[in-house]
C-alpha cells in the first residue's frame, strides 16, 4: 500500500479513472440523448399550443402539433424564407453568428438582447384554409435572466390569444408568477397595436382601470415584480416593433387584403 504514491501508480490511477468516468458519461449522454431531445421538443410544442389555446386534455401534444405549420421568416424583409431547413434552425447559434444576426444599438435594444438573429421560426395554425392563429417566439431580459416565450395573435394580427413563457429565471412567487394561469388569462383579448400601428401593449404597475379607453392595451402588473413586468412590456414592444415581427405582420396583412 505504501507504493501507492509512486509516480507510476499515480499516473495509472489517474488515467484509468478518467477513462472509466468519461466512458460512463459518454455512454449515458449518447443513450439518453434521444429522450432528452424529445422532452425538449415536447415542452416547446406544449407551450406553443398552450399560447394559442389549442391544448386539449387527453390528446397527445405531438398529435395536436401536427396542425401547426412551422415557417422560417426573414426578420429583415418580413418574408418567409424557403432556403433554411427548419430542422437546421437554431435560435442560439443564429443569434450569435455575425453573418446571421445584427448587433442592436442600445437605443433600440429595449429587451436587452445585444444581438438579434435575422431569421426566426413562426408557427401558423390554420382552420381549413383560414389562418386561425400566428404564434411568435419572443424573448427579453427580466430580472435575473432572459425570459423566453411565445405570443399567439389572432388573424387580425392585433388581438392576443395568449402569452406563455417556457424558460425564465424569475423569482418563484414574484416574477415567477408570469407562469400563473390567472395572470396569463388576463392577456387573452388584449390588443397589441393601435389603429395606426404603434405598439401599445404594456404591463402597468397595479391594476388596470377597466373603464378607461386604453384598458385593452394594458395588463395588470405583477406585485413585487416591477422589473419582470417591465421586462415583459419591453420584450413585447421589441418583438412587435420594426426590429421584430413588424415587417412580417405588415406583409401578412397586405397579403390578406390582396387575397380578398
Amino acid at each position, binding site marked *: *500500500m505504501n507504493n*501507492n*504514491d*509512486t509516480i507510476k*501508480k*499515480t499516473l495509472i*490511477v*489517474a488515467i484509468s*479513472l*478518467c477513462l472509466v*468516468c468519461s466512458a*460512463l*458519461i459518454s455512454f*449515458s*449522454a449518447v443513450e*439518453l440523448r434521444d*429522450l*432528452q431531445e424529445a*422532452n*425538449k421538443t*415536447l*415542452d416547446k410544442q406544449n407551450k406553443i399550443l398552450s399560447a394559442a389555446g389549442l391544448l386539449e386534455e387527453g390528446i397527445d401534444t405531438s398529435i395536436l402539433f401536427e396542425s401547426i405549420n412551422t415557417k422560417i421568416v426573414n426578420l429583415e424583409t418580413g418574408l418567409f424564407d424557403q432556403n433554411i431547413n427548419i430542422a437546421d434552425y437554431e435560435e442560439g447559434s443564429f443569434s450569435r453568428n455575425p453573418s446571421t444576426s445584427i448587433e442592436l444599438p442600445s437605443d433600440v435594444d429595449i429587451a436587452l438582447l445585444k444581438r438579434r438573429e435575422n431569421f426566426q421560426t413562426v408557427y401558423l395554425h390554420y382552420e381549413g384554409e383560414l389562418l386561425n392563429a400566428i404564434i411568435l417566439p419572443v424573448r427579453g431580459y427580466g430580472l435575473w435572466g432572459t425570459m423566453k416565450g411565445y405570443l399567439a395573435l389572432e388573424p387580425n394580427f392585433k388581438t392576443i390569444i395568449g402569452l406563455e413563457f417556457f*424558460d425564465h*429565471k424569475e*423569482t*418563484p*412567487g*414574484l416574477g415567477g*408568477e408570469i407562469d*400563473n394561469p*390567472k395572470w396569463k388569462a388576463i392577456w387573452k383579448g388584449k390588443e397589441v397595436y393601435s389603429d395606426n400601428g404603434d405598439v401599445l401593449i404594456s404591463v402597468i404597475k397595479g391594476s388596470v382601470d377597466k373603464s378607461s379607453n386604453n384598458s385593452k392595451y394594458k395588463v395588470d402588473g405583477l406585485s*413585487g415584480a416591477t422589473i419582470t413586468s417591465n421586462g415583459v412590456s419591453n420584450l413585447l414592444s421589441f418583438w412587435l416593433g420594426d426590429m421584430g415581427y413588424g415587417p412580417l405582420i405588415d406583409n401578412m396583412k397586405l397579403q390578406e387584403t390582396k387575397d380578398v
Partner: protein
Amino acid sequence: MSKAKEALLNPIFNDNPIALQILGICSALAVTGNLYITLIMCVALTTVVTLSNLSVSLIRNHIPTNIRIIVQISIIATLVMLVDEVLQAFDYESSKTLSVFVGLIVTNCIVMGRAEAFAMKNGPLLSAIDGFGNGLGYSIILIIIAIIREFIGAGTFYGIEIMPLTTNGGWYLANNFFLTPASSFFIIGFTIWALREWKTDQIEKPEFKISENSLEAEKRAV
C-alpha cells in the same frame, strides 16, 4: 448498536450533516421552495452520496494520497453528471426548475466530506450505508424546510392547496419572504435549536465567556 445501524441512523438526528455538521447549507437554501422539487433533489443527493461513498471505498486502497481529493471529485462529478442526464431524460420539468443545483451537488460539502472522512477508511458496504444515512439526514432537514416554506409562502402542501391565496380569490395573503431562499436560514436556525433542545449533548460549549465588566469589578473592589 451494530456498526451498520449506527452508520445508517446516526446521521439522521444524532449527527445530522446539516443541523450538526453545518454542511450542505447552500442547496438547503436554494431548492426548498417547493416540496416536489426538494424531494427530487433529496433523491439525487442521496443517490450520489451513496454511490460515491461506495466507489471511493472500493478503490480506497489504490488511491495515491497526493491526488486523493482529485480522484474523489472526479468520481463525484461523474455521478452528478449521470444523475443530471437521467433527470433530463425522465423528469424534464423538474430538471428545468433545479437547473444548476443538480450540477452543484459536486460542490456539496456532504458528498465530499463523507468520501474523505468515512469512505477512505471503511469498507464498501459500510461506506454505502453511511452515505445513504447521510443522504437521509440531509433529506429530512430539507423536507422540513420545504414543507414550512411551501406552506407559508404559497399556502400549499405538495402542490395541494391548503390555504387559498388572495391572488386566486382566497383569503390567505402569501408571505413572499418564505419564497426567497433567505427564509431557509431562519428555518434551519430554528430546526437546529429544536434539535438541540431535544438532544442536549449537541449543544456546544461556549468558546469563551464574557468576563465581568472591569469597571464594575473595580468599583466593587474599592
